[in-house]
């Protein structure tokens, strides 16, 4: 694995103190993303993918607490960095865009000004040049007539345009890593494709690592080189896209693929996954949180999860994974 990891998350665990008890949102989550690589964090809503991103960015809800783990970015452990260190890194080295663009922008401040704020803060751009550079930024994210648009307010722009502005804000200081938390979910399909192309083009131009968080396995497949599947706060499988789609080892991933409509499969073949995510407040959670819904459950599943299962590049946390197909086995063990 030649490329140095832009970000490596090791053993991340997060808990939330809520009115009705302690929620163990994340348990021992580990993955890494290399410079220029785009990986996808995939899972049902509530699987902890966004929590991971917020934990890494240090913008967890006040009730949330990182209880274990590290997130190394350029030698700095984000999880234990001081607020000022974090403030310097956020926006400059690591940036994030969110799901519903219109509410994610300041409603009473012109969009150009919002980009200029980041430029002034991180891009050490002098105050009087910031507005011009912001207009340039708007142009680079594909907004037509950026000079006029810069003075407009978010409510005067479409969802797609707002998303472009958000991307402009995120990439203003040319960060190393961009986390995109379901950036296109709120948009129509055509805009969705345009935005995703934009993100990929800019990422490759800047050699930027990208973590693409989505619940849409198909979309993840098209846009990322590696997929990390999460279930109820656990990373259950982490493998290159093609290998994962053709040879899913974890029963949950297989179920997910079966439940994802692609051009080939017809509607009625879609299987729905039985049961639902376990309540993470329970104190009697089994080590493998999928076991209660897993058809391949065996006695071993009561043991603490193995993390080294499968090859280096294809990790699966399961005592009774699906058999590895011949094609990948040889290559994996060799590397």
């Amino acid at each position, binding site marked *: 694995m030649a490329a140095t990891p832009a970000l490596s998350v090791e053993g991340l665990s997060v808990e939330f103190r809520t009115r009705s008890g302690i929620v163990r949102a994340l348990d021992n989550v580990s993955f890494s993303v290399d410079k220029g690589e785009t990986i996808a964090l995939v899972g049902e809503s509530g699987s902890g993918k966004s929590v991971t991103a917020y934990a890494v960015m240090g913008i967890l809800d006040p009730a949330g607490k990182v209880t274990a783990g590290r997130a190394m970015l350029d030698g700095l452990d984000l999880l234990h960095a001081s607020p000022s260190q974090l403030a310097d890194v*956020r*926006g400059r080295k690591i940036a994030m865009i969110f799901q*519903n663009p219109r*509410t994610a922008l300041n409603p009473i*401040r012109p969009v150009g000004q919002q980009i200029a704020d980041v430029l002034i803060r991180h891009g050490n751009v002098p105050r009087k040049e910031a507005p011009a550079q912001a207009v340039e930024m708007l142009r680079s994210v594909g907004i037509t007539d950026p000079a006029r648009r810069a003075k407009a307010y978010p*409510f005067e722009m479409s969802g797609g345009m707002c998303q472009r502005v958000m991307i402009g804000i995120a990439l*203003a200081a040319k960060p190393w890593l961009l986390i995109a938390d379901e950036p296109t979910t709120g948009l129509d399909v055509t805009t969705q494709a345009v935005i995703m192309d934009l993100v990929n083009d800019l990422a490759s131009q800047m050699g930027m690592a990208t973590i693409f968080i989505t619940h849409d396995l198909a979309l993840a497949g098209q846009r990322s080189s590696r997929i990390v599947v999460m279930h109820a706060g656990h990373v259950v499988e982490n493998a290159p896209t093609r290998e994962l789609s053709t040879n899913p080892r974890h029963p949950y991933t297989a179920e997910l693929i079966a439940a994802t409509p692609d051009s080939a499969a017809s509607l009625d073949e879609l299987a729905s996954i039985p049961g639902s995510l376990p309540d993470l407040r329970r104190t009697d959670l089994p080590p493998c949180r999928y076991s209660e819904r897993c058809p391949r459950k065996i006695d071993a599943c009561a043991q603490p999860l193995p993390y080294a299962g499968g090859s280096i590049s294809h990790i699966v946390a399961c005592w009774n994974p699906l058999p590895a197909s011949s094609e990948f086995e040889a290559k994996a063990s060799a590397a």
Partner: protein
Amino acid sequence: MLTMILKRAGMAIPSLIGVVIVTFLLTRALPGDPAAYFAGPAATPQAIEQVRVKLGLDKSLIAQFGNYVVDLAHGNFGTSLTTGQPVVSELITRLPASAELTLLGLLVSIIIAVPLGILAATKPNSLIDHACRIATTLGVSLPVFFTGLILVYVFYYQLGWAPAPLGRIDVFFDPPPAYTGFYLIDSLIAGQPETFMAALKQLILPALTLGIFSLAPIARMTRASMLAVLSSDFVRTARASGLASYTVIVTYAFRNAMLPVITTLGMVFSFLLGANVLVEKVFAWPGIGSYAVEALLASDFAPVQGFVLTMAVMYVALNLLIDVLYGVIDPRVRLEA
């Protein structure tokens, strides 16, 4: 923007009419009989009857109301029997006194309560949050006149720091020329720094009294609205893009949180106008509140009606001002109006 203002003003007309009717009935329900009061201590029944006719109180209620409305249309608020002067001129001289005191009280309250509210919101349920809440609630827990009396006792009587509670300006200073009626502004216009200082010193204690009394609603509203804004998506984006905490909290969060706070300011201002009736009594302030109270106790209708109507108009004007301010702060309102 203009259409919005006219629309709001239009909507306020029915409530103004309501105020006129209710005040008229309320003053007529006052037990005192002004004719007897103003016929003097040893008046014989005929003398009282003579005064009653002079005041036009012998006519039927409807006729009296008719005359009252006609007078009102001509801007004639009638004459106050307690002070013997036309109500209009009294209101003109006294309204700035009360407005200046109440506005300064509000300013003091904002300067203290808003930062407290923001501080409390940024660290919810922390020690500071509770301390802020306790401090501001203490302010509102004491009757305003008692706070005033304690402040006078401590800062004037014992320590001598504050000037004598003798009204708007030191006895031996002549008030500044009356351009606006606001001593502070007038003395600045007239370029009299010494008068400005004298007037300011007199204002400190009463404004502080009013300020303390209105800390709680403003601080509570600022905290609640800041809490809501701080948990919104765009603040999360601002934090995620590493903006300085000052920018996030003040430029991004607070500017959005100001909107509901401003509406509270409107309500608090009209609340304070009522409360400063007592502060005016404690600080011998020649304001509109103490004027109305004396008139009410003496069952002197004209000033009470004049006072309440002025307050109603001010209340409507205040709400219009708030709408305009809304427009200034929130482009959505401005562009949609």
